[in-house]
């Protein structure tokens, strides 16, 4: 390996995986404490909480996009369904304040139901139709939320969402939300990793790699795909329900198509089919732009003087979003062309996209010799 990082990589690679997981967990647990001891601004805690929501979404979408190989472009619709469940059932809008657990269950079930509905027409079809159907479905949901004023108050949104009460504990501080989300993320990641390594997970991977071959090996494609879509919808609904509690206000502009694209970008960047990848992708794409922006617009000017690179400051202040999305678009294209396995790749997916590489075939022979050799075609 002529990679300059390879030696560093080997050193890091010798550390067992649980060490990294533990380090990440410790970091996540310590993170809100920094704020409560006044070591960090609350802003960062808020951004961290937002990142955790994206982590949840990325892990959920990874089930569909990464594990099963279906491009889902309306993922934010299920997020919206969850968020509106909370907003309607726990706000002054209809003067309701339902129990937190009940709302979580309703949000998940409702999102799963919607996932099922969108799955019926699209999963029997070729994979790329699913992309368009889900995209259209996402827009239908957003426009319906915007138009159905009796239920959702239309574009005005639903303000004043009550904080959740969990066993008598009122969650209303940013740090509390961070921990709540962290617990949810840990549970979801644990569940998803188990499923991934189960029969169902292997069926999904088989479908992704060769639908026809897997069909003939006893996988029922529509059912397996439906399961992935429904489960990931449930995760998005859960994320949305907590998100609405956290924001205390939602309206349809939170659920634009671009949000779905951002989550897709996270999964692609981190590595399709890899849970650590999804987590890393979410953290990288949600936190990095904000850190860059704060560095150039707040900290450096403060440290060096406000005239520090005024052009960069101005550009970041006015066109930040444009450049961010421009780079997101570019990231997707470059990643799929040059490193389709993502930053933290999953073994199988990596093999799949680099099959022509002799080094990789050798690697595959050494490590995964139980797979048939010389499978050439990926085109369907």
């Amino acid at each position, binding site marked *: 390996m002529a990679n300059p990082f390879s030696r560093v990589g080997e050193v890091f690679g010798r550390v067992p995986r649980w060490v990294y997981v533990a380090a990440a967990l410790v970091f996540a647990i310590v993170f809100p404490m920094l704020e409560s001891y006044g070591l960090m601004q609350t802003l960062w805690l808020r951004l961290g909480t937002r990142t955790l929501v994206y982590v949840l979404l990325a892990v959920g979408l990874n089930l569909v996009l990464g594990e099963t190989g279906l491009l889902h472009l309306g993922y934010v619709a299920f997020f919206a369904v969850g968020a509106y469940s909370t907003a309607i059932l726990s706000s002054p809008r209809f003067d309701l304040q339902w129990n937190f657990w009940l709302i979580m269950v309703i949000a998940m079930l409702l999102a799963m139901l919607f996932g099922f509905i969108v799955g019926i027409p699209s999963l029997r079809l070729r994979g790329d139709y699913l992309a368009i159907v889900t995209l259209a479905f996402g827009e239908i949901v957003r426009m319906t939320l915007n138009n159905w004023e009796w239920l959702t108050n239309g574009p005005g949104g639903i303000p004043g969402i009550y904080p959740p009460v969990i066993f008598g504990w009122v969650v209303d501080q940013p740090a509390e939300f961070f921990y709540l989300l962290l617990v949810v993320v840990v549970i979801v990641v644990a569940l998803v990793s188990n499923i991934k390594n189960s029969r169902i997970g292997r069926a999904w991977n088989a479908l992704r790699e060769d639908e026809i071959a897997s069909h003939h090996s006893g996988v029922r494609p529509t059912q397996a795909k439906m399961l992935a879509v429904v489960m990931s919808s449930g995760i998005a609904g859960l994320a949305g329900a907590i998100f609405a509690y956290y924001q205390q206000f939602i309206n349809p502009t939170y659920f634009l198509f671009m949000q779905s694209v951002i989550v897709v970008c996270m999964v692609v960047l981190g590595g399709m089919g890899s849970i650590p990848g999804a987590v890393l992708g979410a953290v990288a794409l949600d936190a990095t732009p904000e850190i860059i922006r704060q560095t150039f617009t707040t900290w450096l000017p403060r440290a060096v003087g406000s005239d520090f690179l005024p052009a960069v400051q101005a550009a970041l202040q006015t066109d930040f979003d444009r*450049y961010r999305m421009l780079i997101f*678009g570019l*990231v997707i294209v470059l990643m799929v062309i040059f490193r389709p396995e993502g930053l933290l790749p999953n073994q199988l997916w990596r093999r799949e996209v680099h099959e022509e590489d002799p080094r990789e075939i050798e690697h595959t022979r050494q490590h995964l010799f139980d797979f048939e050799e010389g499978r050439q075609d990926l085109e369907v």
Partner: protein
Amino acid sequence: MTLEHIFGLTVSGLTVGMIYALIALGYTMVYGVLQLINFAHGEVFTIGGYIAASTLIWIGVDATTPLAVKFAYFGLALLVSLVLTATLGFLIERIAYRPLRNRSRIIALLSAIGTSIFLQNLLVIVFGPQPIIMPTAVVPTGFVEIFGARIRVLQITIIVVSLLLMALLTWIVKGTRMGKAMRATSQDREAAEMMGIETNLTISFTFVVGSALAAIGGFLVAMYYGSLQFNTGFLYGLKAFTAAVLGGIGNIPGAVVGSLVLGLAENWGVGLNLGVLAWLFVGGLLLGLYFQLVRAPRFRIDHIAEEFRTPAYERRVRDVYRFAPVVALKTLFAERTDALLYVSAQHAVRLTAANVILLGLAVLFFVNGDVQFASKWQHVISFAVLMAILMFRPSGILGEHIQEKV
């Protein structure tokens, strides 16, 4: 519900349908040749319109310019736009799609989406977020009165120009060497290559032609509606893709038919009373019943091998269709069924479901005959059409014209 209202809506629907068609043709050609949804096509459309409009504004046409000079300027602007947009289409294929040609479809589609996002934001950075506006002095504003409805000359121009372009495209695909190469490439790329066809060149050509059509569409939108915004292409692209699927993707006449249907559905949907719309569902129901009771059983029976075609068996096939869902469900859940009956039963259940839904909608609409859909549901209608067509007839109205390699 006056006649001129219906007529006005129809002309508006046809006009917007023709514009959808110009974009949908690009989608459908690329899909036919590469089996790829060229997601960036909507952005190509916007960029084409932007370039043409800004060229016109830059030249500085106003109301005093003589007509002949005006037309020359229009031609010039269009030419600039065509050249640049076709180059863009060529580059998109070269940079974003060609390296991925042998990868799975989802990878190529991801690349297309990334390209689309990139181009849209590039457009904002170059031209700014404010829309580009055509001064009315530039645009011909004449009109004629037909059946009491006012039809703009520009609407007629759009319809005529689109029809001419479609005829030209049909000639290219059916009558030229390049068209033959395109058809061959779409059937089987490897075989076409072995026969000495330059598939790379053919694919590039497809992108160039599709982009040029989209650019003309963009220019017509800027002229007709008076404005283009950086994100206009997203919605138009999505609608045009819907139209392509509606007509049967990969199918050139299908794209045109689908576009017109979609344009009309959008305008009629929010312009006509439900009582009037209900008749469309009645028509659909009659068609659906014809399919279920006559066409589909006949089609199935024709596929039975001669030696098995006994009158009793034919009747069983017919009964599955005629007395669905009872007989069809019985067949589906029977312990021993033969494959043809099983497939027929599935098909019959689907057809019955569609017909029941059509009947329900027709009744619902007749009952609420005086109400009208609020115009806020316009886009929802077109997306609902997309979901409905995929649920009940995924191959589209005219069927797909692509060869599935499996």
